[in-house]
């Protein structure tokens, strides 16, 4: 997988999370815990559909809800990025 793809994937995930949790753009850090945010099922849907639409990545919803940090989520998505 190219560095360009992984970089843009990480950026897209951070953007999506910041939008979903109404955070100032650029403030979310890799090591931040996801447990501090209030997820609802629609938040998970937004992430799943974005990854599928923009990166052709299919992530199991359970994997998203089991991720503890932002970086965990990025790693999960990266592992499914098709060459």
């Amino acid at each position, binding site marked *: 997988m190219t560095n360009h793809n992984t970089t843009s994937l990480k950026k897209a995930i951070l953007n999506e999370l910041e939008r979903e949790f109404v955070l100032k753009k650029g403030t979310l850090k890799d090591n931040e815990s996801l447990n501090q945010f209030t*997820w*609802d*099922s*629609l938040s*998970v*849907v*937004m992430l*799943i*559909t*974005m990854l*599928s*639409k923009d990166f052709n990545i*299919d*992530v*199991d*919803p359970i994997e*998203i*809800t089991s991720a503890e940090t932002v970086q965990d989520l990025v790693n999960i998505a990266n592992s499914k990025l098709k060459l």
Partner: protein
Amino acid sequence: MTHFAKIKNIEYVLGEQEISDELLIKENPTWNITNISLKTGIKIRYAVKPNQCASDLAVLAAEELFNQANFDRQNIDYILFCTQSADHFLPATACLMQERLKIKQVCGAVDYNGGCSGFVSGLGIAKGLIETKQVNNILLITADTYSRFIHPKDKSVRLLFSDAATAILLTNEAQNESIGPFSYFTNGKGANNLIVRDGAMRYPINSESKVDTIDCYGNTRSNVNLYMNGPEIASFSMVSVPTVLNKFLENNKLSYNDIDFFVFHQANKHMLEQLRCKLNIPTNKFHSSSCDIGNTVASTIPIALKRMQLDGLLSTGKKLLLLGFGVGYSIGITLINWV
């Protein structure tokens, strides 16, 4: 003499209780409803009164159909009733419709449990009945009252679904094939992701059935309420719909350019937009504006067709691809050559 099935008329009725964002915010101040409505595109939900059934909406839709189509109901040979909210376990609600609509007794009447792909399935069944010359004219009804399954404190579904009924008149008057081909897909592994668990034969009502529980997102429901695992449904939709659709087009030697309009099950605006982008379908060919009235289950596609017709979009010869997807899991696809 030709004997091809065609869609002759469509009418629809929505539940008469309007549930606005304002009403929901008043009841549930902690729900971020405005934000959710922006994403789903749903402006108002519609619900039946507490003692109203899907069949009550269906009668209204059918009467409107007979009136608008100027069609003698005594020429109906078959009633197909698509519902997941039947009046009784038995008899079929379609039989009750025969009596309530005063349709002749020399008539078939069956229910089928179709859900989001139910309209496409109904077209397939109707085409088979008509084009094998078993019958000439069919009253196809889609009707659901999900509001009666939904717990008022379950945000995951309360904001999404509406009650409605559609009545569709199918006749044998088409000169050429107007409906079809078809493709169907089923994956029962997804059954538990959109379900009303208790109350039928597998899990009859017991002392635990109506006990409320709260899920990890703070939604309240019991086993007699509708449960929808939105993320799993979304995941299924984003994977299976493109796969099945592309296979359908390939098998029928069609390209996206051959289709004038794609009319998918109007689940919600966000889901449709994600699918449209993934499939690279231009916006002017993709109908999604019927999401504003909420997810009416099997009725979303016929309601969309009626609205498109009223907007003057459906002229003779237009090629429509209808795709229902959801509960089951199930997907149904068909082509309509509009006549």
